[in-house]
């Protein structure tokens, strides 16, 4: 579903991502870890088509994001760390806008709206203006909008920040269920427990380079350690 082939992205003189090659197959839950400034968000923006690689190729669902960006973006939903909502729309109006934007058939849009409203427990506030929403309410609305059009790839940047324990638990179940139904989930997080618990594979990025990538067992082998993910992460990123 995601192919990054020898991708480099520079911000002026600073290289944010360097010669990154990574493949994430359909239905995989991939967790992307790394210290602050490692290049995780830049990589995500490259996959979303928000930024273009300085060198290399990024493909989503087989479509090059530079040459066939519209086709690629139609397959993707992105939940950023600071999600955007139109303050003067209600949650329902925002969901309807997303349905329209993705060209959903009206009948199907109606059904999916009802489904995600129920799935994310939006009933109580879905007809209020989003300017009155708390962080948790906003996050649930954004996830509902991201899944409304049933994307092939869900990209989430720090999705658990600001959520209460119950919401985090529900989110974890949701992400696992999505992967089970064939949706690729690309997750960027600092919460190592979630990555360890959920991810099929884990990628560790530091200073723009992919230092390690694989299952927990693969990473243990690479780090020559039997510790938990936190130990492995520190050992791999602090290695000279």
């Amino acid at each position, binding site marked *: 579903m995601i192919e990054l082939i020898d991708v480099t*992205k*520079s*911000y*002026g*003189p*600073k290289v944010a991502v360097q010669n990154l090659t990574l493949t994430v197959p359909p239905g995989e839950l991939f967790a992307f870890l790394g210290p602050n400034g490692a290049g995780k968000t830049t990589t995500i923006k490259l996959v*979303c*088509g*928000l*930024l*273009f690689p300085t060198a290399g190729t990024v493909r989503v669902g087989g479509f090059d994001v530079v040459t066939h*960006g*519209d086709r690629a*973006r*139609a*397959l*993707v939903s*992105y939940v*950023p760390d*600071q999600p*955007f909502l*139109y*303050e*003067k*729309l*209600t949650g329902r*109006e925002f969901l309807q*806008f*997303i349905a*329209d*934007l*993705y*060209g*959903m*058939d009206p009948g*199907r849009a109606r059904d999916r709206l009802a489904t995600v409203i129920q799935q994310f427990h939006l009933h109580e506030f879905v007809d209020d*203006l989003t*300017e009155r929403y708390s962080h948790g309410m906003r996050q649930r609305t954004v996830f509902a909008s991201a899944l409304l*059009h*049933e*994307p*092939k790839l869900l990209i989430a940047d720090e999705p658990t920040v600001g959520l209460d324990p119950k919401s985090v638990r529900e989110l974890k179940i949701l992400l696992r269920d999505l992967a089970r139904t064939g949706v690729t989930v690309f997750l960027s997080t600092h919460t190592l427990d979630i990555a360890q618990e959920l991810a099929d594979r884990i990628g560790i990025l530091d200073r723009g380079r992919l230092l390690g990538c694989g299952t927990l067992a693969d990473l243990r082998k690479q780090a020559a350690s039997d510790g938990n993910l936190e130990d492995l992460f520190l050992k791999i990123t602090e290695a000279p």
Partner: protein
Amino acid sequence: MTDSPATDQAAVFRRLRVRLLRNALQSLGTNGRVKLATLCGTSLLAAGFVFGIARYGFQELFRYNVPLKGLIVGGLFDLLFFTLGGMLVISTGIILYASLFTSPEARFLLTTPARADRVFATKFQAAVGFSSWAFVVLGVPILVAYGSVAGVPGYYYLLLPAYLLGFVLLPGSVSSLAALLLVRFLPRNRKQALLLLGAVAALLAGAWGVRLVLSLRQTARAADKEAVAGLIGQFALAQSSLVPSHWMTNGLMAAARNDLPAALVPLALLWSNGLALFTLAAWGAKRVYRTGFDRATDGGRGKKTFRHSPLDRVMSALVFYLDRPTRVLVLKDFRTFRRDPTQWVLLAIFGGMVLIGGLQLRNISQSDLATLEKYAVSLANVGATSVLLCAVLSRFVFPLISLEGRKFWILGLVPISRNQILRGKFAFAATLSVVLAEGLILISDLLLELPAVVVLVHAVTLLAVAVGLSGLNVGLGAYMPNFRETDPSKIVVGFGGTVNMMIGLCYLVLVVGISAGPLHAAAVAAKYQTGQLSVEGSALPLWAFAGVPVALALAAVATVIPLRAGGRALRAVEF
């Protein structure tokens, strides 16, 4: 399963805009009736004020049957539309740049299947709407005033909205194309390149202004056809048949003459060119917007170390009378100001233009400027400096509280009251504006070799203007904050910013008229009664100074009332 994105995105975004507008109006109607009434009231007041002044001017022109009055009105309209068009290019460009390349909404939309040209069109309409607000409030009353005096046919008024809408398309399209191309193709140090372009444009405008003043002076002396033609000749650029502002003038003047075919041709020119340019801009957006966004994200990230500056110590010394915590707040605002070149460069350009004007007038006074004209010129300097202050404070000080926005909790947690925060912002604004205004007026008055008493009255007048405008901008900025907007240019041209600008303009006209007006009237009266111009101390009647204490009282009112209202509003806000 994702459907095909081949949907009617124009209809999708149209529905979005309608919903946003409807909800915003409903929200304003239920939660902000006082605010809505204030906004509408001040807009009407400003429009009424402009209408009154314009109608008076046109009536005088028609009553005395001034030679070539049609040419003069045409020249004035050319100048009005040319200037407003230029301002629209700049304001729409700035708003559109922020909307397209730095806003969270743009980041969100670009990750969806929304087409680049559709996102551009949506942001274009919003930017033109924002920036044209003042154009409508200022332009329509002048055109209606002309219609009411010149006895125009009814369709003149019906055509006005069509002309105005057609006209705003052109500067909007030009600036959007420029913004897209500059972001996409300029080298990495584009900020410096843009500032350089802006400075060159401002200097050219300043040189043109000086030529205009010289021509006006000649016209006032000669008052014959050649001089009028000379004056009109200064507007040659604005009168070129290739300039859209001239199409506006031609069309409206033809409508006023009841020549419908001649009125419709320029209208068609405006719309066809506007739509063609907009289509070109949208086509450009389709090709370069996404790559431009990519460049805007990665451009010019050189590592820079910020250190203390001697200017910080000067600022700290200027507000020595404040307690330490408030002084620290003032320094924070000052550092933010001086580290943002888009803020201080504009101020430097405008200040430089006033000084260049002063130096040119010095040359004139050394040659043949009559004494009476020195007074007229010095009064114009007071007016220009006041307008400069009004523009600068509205642009930079009014949004200060709004920009604290969601990070207000930082200030909310420090051990100082919210009133102190307001006092700090007021001290920052008042100190800088007093230094700027007094410096400019002292230099220009001394260059004109005016007597000390005139310089003193001008200095007190500008003190009242600077302090009062600072109080108004800080107070109203806190009373009508927009914590959701992060783009200062949008805050300035929004409802609150427009109301603030209108009140500020009315205030400065009132203060300058009351404080400096009588002195200059007394000078003119002395000239015609005695044949000599004598304003040295006791030679002037007492009433010539009667307005000065009134102006100071007005400054106190303009400071205290808005700051109290703003303080109350700020204390009531929960973050």
